């Protein structure tokens, strides 16, 4: 019984990281209908920024984390302005290939700057706590707590503020939103900045529990977060949150009870089952093609 609780808590921890990243995928997909493959590499940039500030300039960890959120937000906005905006009118495929190109560019640029060798990331949250008989690191508690706060904040932002309303409108119908006097370009930029900032938060927590960073770390983390977004229903915020937690728990249970080698297979298996049974995900709205 204790093992189950332990695995569940670990699952919640990695799951909340997936949720934070999945939110970025989901928001961007909702608003520009693009699977942003560069999102995973934005996480990587966030991790490197924090690591660099802490290890080279011994900046306090929380300042480093805030700076990396800012850096990632700007990076996300720049990627959208330079690479995606000129292609908004052309086909989905060229947009997708551009996203893959940006992802390759970020990975290789980082390799050039910091070499391909993995770097050690010192845990920000030291110390442990005891629940029952098991010990948990404070990072676990911090990850879950901060994620809950952020998700609540994000929900408020989208539901209650003016820019949140604009985001919902643009994802509903881009052109009509424009006719209603909403600045679509600003809204899209803001969405990218927000998503990338969340990715940076996810990156910091991810590094605290896995302690190793390398230029290709983003692709697998990104893919799994993306699966989470699809599971919850891509384009839906509560969906991304629940999807992330489900994937995290499923992964943790597989690791604990089956085999740690099969976690990837289970994650992608979930993806396939969801797509075959209910492609719009848990919270997604089905849409029918009209003639």
């Amino acid at each position: 019984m204790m093992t189950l609780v332990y695995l569940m808590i670990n699952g919640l921890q990695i799951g909340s990281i997936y949720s934070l990243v999945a939110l970025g995928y989901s928001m961007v997909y909702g608003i520009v209908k693009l699977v942003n493959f560069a999102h995973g590499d934005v996480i990587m940039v966030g991790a490197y920024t924090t690591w660099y500030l802490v290890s080279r300039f011994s900046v306090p960890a929380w300042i480093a984390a805030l700076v990396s959120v800012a850096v990632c937000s700007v990076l996300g906005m720049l990627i959208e302005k330079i690479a995606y905006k000129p292609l908004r009118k052309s086909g989905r495929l060229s947009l997708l290939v551009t996203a893959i190109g940006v992802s390759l560019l970020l990975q290789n640029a980082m390799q050039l700057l910091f070499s391909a060798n993995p770097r050690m990331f010192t845990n920000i949250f030291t110390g442990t706590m005891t629940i029952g008989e098991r010990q948990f690191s404070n990072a676990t508690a911090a990850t879950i707590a901060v994620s809950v706060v952020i998700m609540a904040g994000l929900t408020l932002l989208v539901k209650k503020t003016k820019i949140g309303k604009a985001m919902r409108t643009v994802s509903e119908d881009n052109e009509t939103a424009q006719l209603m006097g909403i600045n679509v370009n600003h809204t899209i930029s803001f969405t990218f900045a927000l998503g990338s900032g969340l990715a940076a938060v996810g990156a910091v927590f991810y590094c605290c529990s896995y302690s190793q960073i390398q230029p290709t770390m983003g692709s697998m983390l990104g893919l799994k977060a993306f699966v989470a977004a699809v599971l919850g229903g891509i384009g839906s915020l509560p969906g991304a949150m629940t999807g992330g937690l489900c994937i995290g728990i499923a992964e943790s249970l597989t690791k604990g009870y089956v085999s740690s080698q099969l976690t990837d297979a289970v994650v992608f298996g979930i993806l396939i089952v969801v797509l075959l049974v209910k492609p719009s995900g848990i919270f997604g709205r089905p849409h029918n093609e009209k003639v």
Partner: protein
Amino acid sequence: MTTRPNVPFRYALNAAAAAGLYIVLMILIRAKVLNRYQALMLIPIGFNIILAVSLNLSAGFLGQLPLGHAGFMSVGAYTAALFSMSVSLPTNLELPLALVLGGLMAAVFGVLIGLPALRLKGDYLAILTLGFGEIIRVIILNLKFTGGAYGLKGIGRQTTVTWVYIFVLITLFILNTLIKSRHGRAILSIREDEIAAEASGIPTTYYKVLAFSISAGFAGVAGGLYAHYLSILDPSSFGFMKSAEILVIVVLGGLGSIFGSVVSATVLTILPELLRGFAEYRMVIYSLLLVAVMIFKPSGLCGRYEFSLGDTLDDFFTLLRGKLKKQEPVARKPATPEPAAPEPAKGK
């Protein structure tokens, strides 16, 4: 240019051109104009052409977006490698048999995955194929007879430039004739509008699965060539990035242009090698070029243009004839000046 081309003549012309190109390549290799390293580069160019052209069938002509091409490639690669490792036949019989077997196995996987996957559309289909591709990789990683994470070693290095050349020709021939046939037109109609195609009585599911599995089959053949070229197989080399790499070749060449895929596969295989002088910068330059091409020419380098040797020659001769005709009247222009147009009466 409405006259029907002389088909048998066209076939002969293309066969002669293919044979001619082969002879030229062989002479270049024998005469050491291409050094050993450059001659070996012809093999990756070849299997990348097969990969790109086969993906173009499902991405460019069928209009779907598969992101799991590397999965089919790995199925073909492992099947072919395991076959050639377990039998001992003469090389010139063993390799083609292994490749055909690898291709068939990949095509079977194409049907198995295509049937559920093709019920979905657009992005969902892309995501599903991505998932299947990753699962194939994880399964290979966890199986005993595939060598797991250690990979499969000791596959005979049987892939030669000649075999690659032959299989590239076969691929191009089959896909080209398929596209131009009745079946090809059905596949194209699904790309243009699936609902309209279904309304016109085209069994869309049948053609989607057909195109998808043919595409998977040729990816398997390319995988077999790859396995017998490297002589080791490692499951981690068939991940999502490999699928993305193939998709990049196709989109850069132009979706729906076989010629574009061939050119782009050739250029993109040679380019990283040419940039080797810049060693660490090469992948950065490569990805920058990719983004730049997409921004400035989103339809790819060749769009939907198809090169046809016969048409080009026809155009050339027509042009030549036109030039001659134009010159003739000038040469022996009789002194019959055109009757001068009456001067328009100036306004009264």
